[in-house]
């Protein structure tokens, strides 16, 4: 799985990139098989079908490009064929309006597989998309539709996996906008998003939380769990004192410096809806405590060193990075 993404990224021709994508798909299939849950195989089949169709479209557009131009890495752009290829790559990532498979597939998988789909599986299609990236109407439409759909569909959710799926669609929109202007900011955005997502998924995996009402009772055993969950969740929303604000800040700054003003305005306005959703959840998590009887309360200590370190990075990074930037 790791090598497949690396093959995809470091390849010189489209064929190698497509090869990496296919190996990626095949390698993740056995990971999704979970004998404990029947629903996971249905999710795995849906994931396979979607990704295979997208790979086929990429192959077809690649061959069309080859017949139109010489097959080198510097492609004289045939805009309609590239539109097809970009659509297929966006499908692979789960960006709106090709997002319909994403929440359903996430719903059927356990947390570790969700983490893989949310973070690692996005690297290869994103990097391939960067080779085709132009500031055109198509890309702007994709970005705006990601924002709108993630805002509207995310509001009514009860399942945490679906909430993370819709937030991922939102962040894909932001990442696409960064790719249009400066790729290094995409790397920062993706790294920070990965750290925050890993934190959240590890907490929820440990406490076996899948739904909102389970949130309010499972985290009362250890206060640090609650604090980490809240900081990471608000980080995802992009509110200033948290780490998640940094990539959004950089994105908006770079977009405005390049003269695009309306696009960041639209993005910010629709992200407000997702912020509302996160705030509602975190407020309830902070305030609500479902009472349990004493004999069922477990006084377990939180013993994960790795999670503590990653959370420390997540909480203190914003201040550290601004200090570093000012010192340099």
């Amino acid at each position, binding site marked *: 799985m790791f090598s497949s993404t690396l093959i995809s990224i470091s390849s010189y021709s489209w064929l190698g990139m497509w090869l990496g994508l296919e190996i990626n798909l095949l390698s993740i299939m056995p990971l999704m098989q979970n*004998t*404990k*849950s*029947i*629903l996971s195989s*249905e999710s795995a*089949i849906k994931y396979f079908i979607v990704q295979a169709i997208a790979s086929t479209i990429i192959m077809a557009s690649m061959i069309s490009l080859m017949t139109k131009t010489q097959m080198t890495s510097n492609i004289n752009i045939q805009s309609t064929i590239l539109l097809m290829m970009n659509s297929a790559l966006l499908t692979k990532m789960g960006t709106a309006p090709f997002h319909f498979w994403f929440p359903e597939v996430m*719903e*059927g998988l356990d947390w570790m597989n969700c983490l893989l789909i949310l973070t690692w599986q996005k690297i290869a299609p994103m990097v391939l998309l960067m080779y085709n990236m132009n500031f055109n109407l198509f890309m702007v439409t994709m970005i705006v539709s990601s924002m709108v759909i993630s805002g*509207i569909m995310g*509001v*009514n*959710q*009860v*399942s945490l996996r679906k909430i993370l799926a819709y937030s991922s669609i939102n962040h894909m929109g932001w990442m696409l906008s960064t790719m249009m202007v400066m790729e290094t900011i995409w790397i920062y955005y993706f790294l920070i998003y990965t750290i925050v997502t890993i934190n959240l998924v590890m907490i929820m995996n440990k406490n*076996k939380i*899948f*739904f*909102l*009402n*389970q949130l309010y*009772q499972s985290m009362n055993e250890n206060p640090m769990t609650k604090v980490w969950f809240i900081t990471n969740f608000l980080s995802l929303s992009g509110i200033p004192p948290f780490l998640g604000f940094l990539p959004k800040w950089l994105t908006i700054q770079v977009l405005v410096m390049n003269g695009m003003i309306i696009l960041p305005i639209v993005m910010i306005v629709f992200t407000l809806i997702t912020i509302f959703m996160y705030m*509602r*959840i975190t407020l*309830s998590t902070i305030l*609500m405590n*479902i009472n*349990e*009887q004493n004999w*069922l309360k477990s006084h377990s200590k939180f013993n994960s060193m790795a999670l503590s370190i990653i959370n420390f990075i997540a909480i203190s990074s914003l201040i550290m990075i601004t200090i570093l930037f000012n010192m340099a």
Partner: protein
Amino acid sequence: MYSLVLNALVRHINKNKINTKCIKYLKTSASLDAFWERDPKGGYIDTREKPSKTQIVREGLKELKTEIALWSQEVKEHFEFDPNMIFRPGETDIVWQFGSQDSLNEWVVTSDKDHNEGYSSCSLALNKHGKGLFAGELSTRVPKDGRIKRAGYCNIKTIRARKSFKRETFLNWGPYNMLVMKVRGDGRSYMLNITTKGFFDLTWNDTYHFVLYTRGGPYWQISRIPFSKFFFASKGRVQDRQSPIPLNKITNFGISVGDKINGSFSLEIDYIGVEFDPNHKEEFAYEMYRMPKYIVAT
């Protein structure tokens, strides 16, 4: 062909009075060679007359107004929904309640008499107190045309939940972990069936069962059954690989009687609801050992 040979063998054994202990190892039911399902209805054909195309179009247009109203209501609910106020612990959210005549339209009543496979009869009606009454007569007499070996079941099942414009959807019971029923039975055991019909043909008959024992007395019983206690079966065959119910993919809920006792039965139902109990932490009640491949079922 295989079953004919075996039937002949069994008759031969009976005639010559061979030691009958070895008969239990002879399999006389149809063997399951493939998992492929031809038909979601399992071969039972709907023989009702379908109306003509123009009539269907006309009736569909009449329903357009109600469907649009339903859709706009769904959109409003989508934005007004607050998950904190809805799934509160300790509160039972009632899903089906028998109070009015309309509530009976949500249930489908079947028995083995429908396709001439038996002689049991049943009905679902409101009794004089306004509660639902599922009653009838169970008969295990097998019709003598050789198609089936055992008979005697009666069943009620809910219709599939639909969104606006007749889109089929699932009942999402993910935030809950208990099924609550207020019933008054007659001492018989009733089987509760939660169907999670999937998209693929292998999963068309996925059902989770639980046996509800009723007391039979004059008092109502409120049974709280955790979803972790339901076991997985398909077409009546309990599967080896068990797993908990996928609570977000529930299609139907049903109650059936098939406890091989001839006679009348009656079950009064007040409501059926779901609840979230934070103290119930069991994920699944049944053993999940991996058995060797040659052991099919114990």
